[in-house]
């Protein structure tokens, strides 16, 4: 696995090399184990820490959107707020409802958290990802994120609570529906890059795929908003309807794990979108790639926050019809369009040059704008008229003078 040297990078092979230097060769298995533990430790802690900072960021930004201050008491600018939150959560009593299925109830938070952490290990944060060059990175992401559905259903079913059950049912229906356009949008990326490996996908983005296939980007971004159930697709929790959705019955540490995974989801989603559509670590030269990566992730996270702060929630049937009638069709159309273009433009070895990608961008943006304008003009029912009248008198035929 680790034959070639990758120079200075932060992946499985280089860490294995460092640890191997201290131990005799006969202890290969120990070196492998230690490497794995080190790597997991790094990935998990980096993510948990960034999630902590993200919760602070989200609450501050939401505060600004809502004409208030947000947390500002504990630490400079309230930066230590996540620690206070965590201390509060773990000091709460960990309740399991009497009628709940204890085992499933206890496992569900972990099942919910693990896939989110796993996804990051394949993302190339520098030249390589933590796991080196996993050549089926995209498949890995699709497969692992699919586990979330099961976790949500486990939590909802095991709680023996009607609200949790309703939330879980909605969750399963919605998440499965949105996985399809998401996977179709990714297929279009594979067409251009010709590889499942995320490193190759990043390298082939001499033009960002968000530019090459705007429809695919739109579909993927929208579907991933639904996948992590953020506004306007937050049906699974829908605070004003279901109390708290599938984790209504959770408290204490288990609830903390759910919250951790939920707040981690925007970061991880932004990381995936950055890798697939915004060129990952690519950028202009004086600034290192890692910084570009963080910048893009930050922008995407901010965009999601903006949605959350300003949009109401769609109803469940509207969400489902949006997935099947709009996104599914768009994703299929995008796939066909890209197939035709790749077939026409590729050279003898099946490669696409930068000029070809620019040409495709121009064509696709034209088509995308045309589609969105057409949808706005023809599809949308005319709901904008405000039909209120004003009357200067008030009478429905009753006379009150002689009462």
């Amino acid at each position, binding site marked *: 696995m680790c034959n070639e040297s990758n120079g200075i990078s932060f992946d499985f092979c280089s860490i294995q090399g460092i640890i191997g230097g201290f131990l005799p060769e006969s202890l290969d298995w120990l070196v492998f184990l230690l490497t794995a533990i080190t790597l997991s430790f790094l990935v998990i802690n980096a993510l948990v820490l960034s999630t902590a900072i993200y919760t602070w960021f989200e609450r501050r930004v939401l505060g600004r959107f809502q004409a208030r201050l947000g947390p500002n008491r504990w630490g400079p600018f309230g930066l230590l707020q996540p620690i206070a939150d965590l201390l509060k959560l773990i000091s709460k009593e960990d309740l399991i409802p009497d009628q709940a299925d204890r085992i499933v109830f206890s496992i569900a938070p972990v099942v919910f958290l693990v896939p989110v952490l796993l996804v990051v290990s394949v993302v190339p944060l520098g030249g390589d990802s933590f796991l080196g060059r996993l050549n089926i990175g995209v498949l890995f992401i699709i497969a692992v994120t699919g586990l979330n559905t099961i976790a949500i259903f486990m939590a909802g079913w095991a709680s023996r609570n009607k609200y949790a059950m309703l939330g879980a049912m909605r969750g399963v229906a919605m998440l499965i529906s949105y996985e399809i356009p998401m996977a179709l949008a990714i297929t279009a990326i594979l067409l251009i890059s010709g590889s499942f490996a995320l490193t190759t996908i990043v390298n082939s983005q001499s033009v960002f795929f968000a530019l090459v296939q705007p429809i695919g980007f739109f579909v993927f971004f929208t579907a991933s908003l639904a996948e992590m159930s953020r506004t306007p697709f937050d049906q699974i929790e829908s605070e004003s*309807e279901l109390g708290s959705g599938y984790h209504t019955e959770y408290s204490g540490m288990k609830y903390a794990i759910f919250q951790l995974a939920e707040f981690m989801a925007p970061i991880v989603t932004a990381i995936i979108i950055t890798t697939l559509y915004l060129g990952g670590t690519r950028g202009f030269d004086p600034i290192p790639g890692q910084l570009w990566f963080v910048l893009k992730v930050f922008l995407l996270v901010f965009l999601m926050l903006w949605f959350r702060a*300003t949009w*109401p929630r*769609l109803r*469940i049937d509207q969400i489902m019809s949006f997935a099947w009638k709009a996104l599914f069709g768009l994703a299929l159309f995008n796939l066909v369009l890209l197939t035709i273009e790749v077939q026409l433009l590729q050279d003898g070895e099946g490669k696409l040059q930068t000029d070809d990608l620019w040409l495709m961008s121009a064509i696709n943006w034209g088509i995308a704008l045309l589609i969105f304008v057409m949808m706005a003009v023809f599809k949308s029912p005319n709901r904008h008229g405000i039909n209120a009248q*004003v009357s200067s008198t008030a009478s*429905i035929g009753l006379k009150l003078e002689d009462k």
Partner: protein
Amino acid sequence: MSMPKFTTEPVTINLGPQHPSTHGVFRIRISFDGEDVVDAEPVFGYLHRGTEKLAESRTYVQIVTLTDRLDYVSSMSNNLSYVLAVEKLADIKVPERAMFLRVISAELQRIASHLMAIGFWLNDLGAFATPLMYCFREREKILDMFEMLCGARITLSYMRPGGVLQDAPEEFWQALEVFLKEFPGYIHELEDLISGNEIVLARSKGIGILSGADAVNSSITGPILRASNVNWDLRKADPYEIYDQLEFDVPLGENGDTFDRYIVRILEMKESIKIVNQCKENIPNGKIRESNVPFFIRPPEGDAYASVEGPKGELGFYLVSDGGISPYRCHIRAPSFINLTSLTDMLKGWKMGDVINIFGSLDVVIGEVDR
């Protein structure tokens, strides 16, 4: 061999009394078939404080403080309705300046109440807290003005039989002028952000329709009735205080869906601004309270009913006097309570998300429902 018959049965959910969207301690027992509402039954009484019975052992002036706690987001309208009933019963004349002050404060209260209705309705739609906070920012200015008027912000007790507690201080008029100048721009901003929002429209147009005939038959009043295109406003139909001297319009919706209820409230706020402007221009000098009103009012034997167009609908007080210092019987016609009568019919057939949407659009305050 025959297949076993596959049957489903509806799930019954207790929405409340502890629920983020029931606006207090209110319970709806709903039967769902999947996501669709099969049956709904409102259950209330959790906040019952026996206001009507308490009123029988209070003097007429003391009861004003009880009325504050009915619809606790629009105390001014409650005060107004009650003192009107007492004045009718005891035949007390009110100085004109007091009438103007009463109308100004009642209309400001209407704006505050509508702001809360719209904010919480959008909160129920899932726009979590942002529109609510914007509405509260403006409501805060009104509460500040009330504080200048009478020292309280929520439970105001500003009005008295025969007038008002005290004259408005100079700073109140300054604050009012700034508010009247800024508020139309704020309504415009709110409309810009919400009335054209595609998701709000998709969630509210054609949802929870209440036909005009149904609304009249179930005694619904206020913005909900007018949203169903029934032209009925007590300020026009049976003018009290100085409303017959003022020029304003009555906004009407067309379809009676939740969007119309929202837009009627927005337009009513604009009309209220008009009314307050006219009152501010024309307010006469003079007394603010009739000086010959005794502390213990002893109305002659008899009964009286007075009602006002409150923010939620027709708010009426029916008082019976036996000649003593406290009423023999006090009955309150609470609009929030009566507006709930057709809730079951409005909810049937809609989805879970719409339940919250429709209930939110009714703008119910539990303090008034349970009394």
